[in-house]
């Protein structure tokens, strides 16, 4: 008996010391923090078994982040040199080095920056960025002033950037984002983004929104030949499914209440925001994947077709009427029109509604 209490204490002590050593191996706090390679499978592993991953590689999600050293991107940004805007702005792009370098010349001096990444698949636009470490080595981001737009097949000012320039060093080159915003930008365009004390580990970025971004780390699944089937998308609740998409495409909770109204064009680019206000959404069980198969390109699945609508509006039930004006082959032009932003980019308005509805008070 006299050794029971000492024995218990000793066991408790040993366990506590072991737990302390585990805590030290964890990045911070008590949260589980997976290291770069722990739990993540090679993306190419998916293609061995899942045919969807082959078509997925061509989607906008998969191509949404590329190194600026990509030959196609290098050629594209170099074409900026011949545009009137660049000449007017004394902007010059050089692709002699591994990454393109942009330079704004003012008299005898030049302000320049290297652009090492490109955001956007090109379906709408491509925006180049340059990573700039600060005094702590944390990663800041320079968003280049000029973006290539598919609709005009040319360069115009990047969305959100000012038309009138101030006098900062980077003003003609673009806008400088601090580390939290840089992380946010990369976070939505990458599957895995290791960050160490504010420094983005660019060499370890899993660029693009790929399989594991939605389906979670799949190392165990791959290693067991598919036996482990955790975190299946089909097992998620409807709200969770939409929330997963809304992580990047924005959730209504992240908008100020007074900004969510049909008179505000700025929310059009945030598809889940509008969708969740729609009566279609609120009175059905639809999710984002009801109309979009993320494994295929938008072109291949006829994203602008009506097959999505007539899944419900088939005329067989009174509470799901067909078009009152007799249109049978072009639902989106009235109920989900494309809206132009301040730049030559158009987004489909996902706030599905009858066009005659007046704006909410």
């Amino acid at each position: 008996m006299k050794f029971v209490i000492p024995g218990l204490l000793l066991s408790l002590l040993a366990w506590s010391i072991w737990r302390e050593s585990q805590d030290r191996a964890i990045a911070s706090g008590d949260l589980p923090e997976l290291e770069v390679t722990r739990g993540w499978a090679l993306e190419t592993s998916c293609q061995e078994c899942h045919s969807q991953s082959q078509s997925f590689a061509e989607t906008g999600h998969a191509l949404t982040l590329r190194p600026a050293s990509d030959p196609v991107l290098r050629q594209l940004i170099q074409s900026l040199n011949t545009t009137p805007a660049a000449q007017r702005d004394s902007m010059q792009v050089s692709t002699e080095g591994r990454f393109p370098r942009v330079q704004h010349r003012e008299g005898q001096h030049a302000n320049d920056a290297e652009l090492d990444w490109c955001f956007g698949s090109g379906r709408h636009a491509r925006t180049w960025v340059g990573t700039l470490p600060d005094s702590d080595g944390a990663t800041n981001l320079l968003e280049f002033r000029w973006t290539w737009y598919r609709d005009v097949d040319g360069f115009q000012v990047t969305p959100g950037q000012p038309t009138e320039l101030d006098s900062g060093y980077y003003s003609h080159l673009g806008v400088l984002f601090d580390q939290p915003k840089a992380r946010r930008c990369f976070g939505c365009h990458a599957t895995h983004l290791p960050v160490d004390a504010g420094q983005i580990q660019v060499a370890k970025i899993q660029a693009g929104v790929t399989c594991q971004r939605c389906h979670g780390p799949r190392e165990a699944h791959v290693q067991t030949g598919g036996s482990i089937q955790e975190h299946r998308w089909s097992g998620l609740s409807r709200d969770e499914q939409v929330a997963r998409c809304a992580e990047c495409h924005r959730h209504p909770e992240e908008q100020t209440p007074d900004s969510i109204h049909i008179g505000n064009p700025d929310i059009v680019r945030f598809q889940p925001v509008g969708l969740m206000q729609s009566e279609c959404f609120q009175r059905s069980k639809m999710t984002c994947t009801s109309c979009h198969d993320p494994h295929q390109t938008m072109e291949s699945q006829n994203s602008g077709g009506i097959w999505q609508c007539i899944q419900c509006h088939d005329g067989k039930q009174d509470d799901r009427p067909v078009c009152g004006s007799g249109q049978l082959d072009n639902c989106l032009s009235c109920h989900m029109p494309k809206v132009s932003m301040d730049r030559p980019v158009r987004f489909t308005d996902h706030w599905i509604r009858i066009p005659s509805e007046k704006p909410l008070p």
Partner: protein
Amino acid sequence: MTHRFPWTSFGVWLAACLLIAGSITAHGVRSDGLPTAMPSGLASSSWSVPGAQWVLIPPVIRNVLAVLGGAWAITALCRDLEVSRSWSLFPLLMGLSLLFQPGDGVAMVLLYLVARMGPKTESTTQDWQLAGIGVTAILMTLEFGLVLGAVLVKLCQPASNEVRPGVGRRLIFPSLWLAGVIGTAMVIPGFSWAAIRPVSWLWMRPAASMMPSLHPAWDSMQFTLPLVLVATTCIVHFRSERNVSRIVWMLILVGVAIQSQRYLFLGLCGLWLWLRPRTVTGCPTPGFGPLLVVCLILSGGYGIYGMGWATLLTGQTIVRSIDPTLWDSRGRVVLMNLDHSAHWSSPLAQERFELLLDDRWDSWGGALKGGSLSDYVAFCRDLREVRDLRYRRVDGTWGGYQSRMETWNPMLLVVDSSDHLSIRGLSLSPDWRIMGIDGQQTIFGRVGDPRNTIQIRHALDCLMTLEWPARLDQFTLDNTLVSGDSHEDQQVAGAMCSLRFPYAALRLARHDQQNHALRARCLLELAHRVASHSSTGSLLDQFRAVIVVQQSLSHRTLEPEIRKTMDRGLQALLDRTTPPLKPNPDELSRLRMAFLTGNSSEIQHLLIGLPPVQANYYQILVRSPGLPPDEIVVELKNAIPPLVGQVPDSTLSECHFYLGCAALESGRIEIAIPAFEESRQLAPNSPFRMIRELYLNQLRR
């Protein structure tokens, strides 16, 4: 029979008081003599020490009484050494005194009383005395679990051979006692968790960053020195121990005690109280009296150092910490380091503020209201990394602090002043602004709350004025930037550097070896600032940054986190400002590159070929890492006039720019402004034109 005054015991007690007072004041009070009665916002059930509600004594007096009581108990423990008047009691005395905190006082006294009770007698008096001690512990200390355990052990101890207590005394009385305790635990929420505090921390303690007091601090003198002192005494007095069970108990007690700073004192006291060493030598140390006098002198000196009596004697009041109750702020407070709870335990602070979570890990036992400990830890981490929007963690849970901010509605956020990463991160947050910095806490206020607005503006005004000292006569640092000694100066300056106010930080930090790492960080920040606003690096700022940072990185004592960020920052600076030279560069280009890369030998080689007036100027830049800014200003002022006509206007403009920077750093605005203006006149399109305009605009605001 004459009774001599126990001078030896009095001397030991006095030494203990002085050591404890100096230690507490120097390192800050981490616990209250009678702990706070207010539960935290998230705690569902929390045991409140009844005495804290009844005893209407100000916290300062409570702490003083706890210190006096603790000193008495330490003295009594030292006196009880079988070999008294021995040199070995001094390490024990000093070690225990340096570890003592007011919150340990009551528990220590009661444990001592239990441990020193004699063997059982026929009378039940001892049983009632033990019961009284147990009840007192429940009413007056949070560590009553230790005392109750000691009482139970004493109750169950076999009596002496002359006494054969009846069944009642052997079984019934301890059983009644145990039943009373268990019954109370079932009726009063939080009692049982509070009772097992002395062991529950082993499995409940969060990471060291969140609650350092529940972890060992091997790199802290405050932890290791007293431990070494006590260990020395332990080795001397337990070396002849042969009883296996006692050895096992000793190892376990020591093993448990050294796992946390908080229980190190009580654990070591338990070791000495319960395993009284059976030493063999019996000769008192000769010269014990003079040894005691020396100990008193040293203790008095330490007490003066810790309490700052020298400053007190001059009539100055030492203010060491910010008092948020003087602000308009109200509401919930988030502590990123839960050990700061003691700073928010005053009655006025409890009236105005509610800690979302405090250091009462016993209140985490039940489910926390509206969340869990993991939620709180996650919330703090998201705040630190400014991850406001929702994001999915790799474990499938949702992160992002916005939703929690709406649920928990915190108004103030408190970060440890040494947590540079968090301070830097929060400085970039759109939701928090700095409100005050002292040697221990850096306090951020929530943006948008009108009660925080005035102090946020004032804090920014203070920092901007320290950074760009244009209007020194129009501001006060009171209750915004507070430090009590040189160590706290360093902490406050470090926080200011993390907030990107390097000039302000350099003004506060002394130019000496103790602040080497801080100075390196500030110079690195300055060099980055110039590089970010120009197409080249500053020979003055960058050369100093490179040299000083490299020197700092060579120090073994540099903290790993600071080493990492400094190394990365230096590499980023060099990558940005030192592209490969073109083929066949001229001498000046090579000289420039040598300065920017900190290549002192190359600089000296290239200076040989320059005219003396130019070489003299560049030599000032070479010496600049070791010179205080005042001297740099004087030397540059003397070196620049001879350069007129000898160097191009662009170079002369650069010289004036460096003079302006040095003058700005030393606070000599009357020199800085004309220097920048002269620089502008000589070369309006200088590479430094943008940073120069920034400096001038700030100095003229």
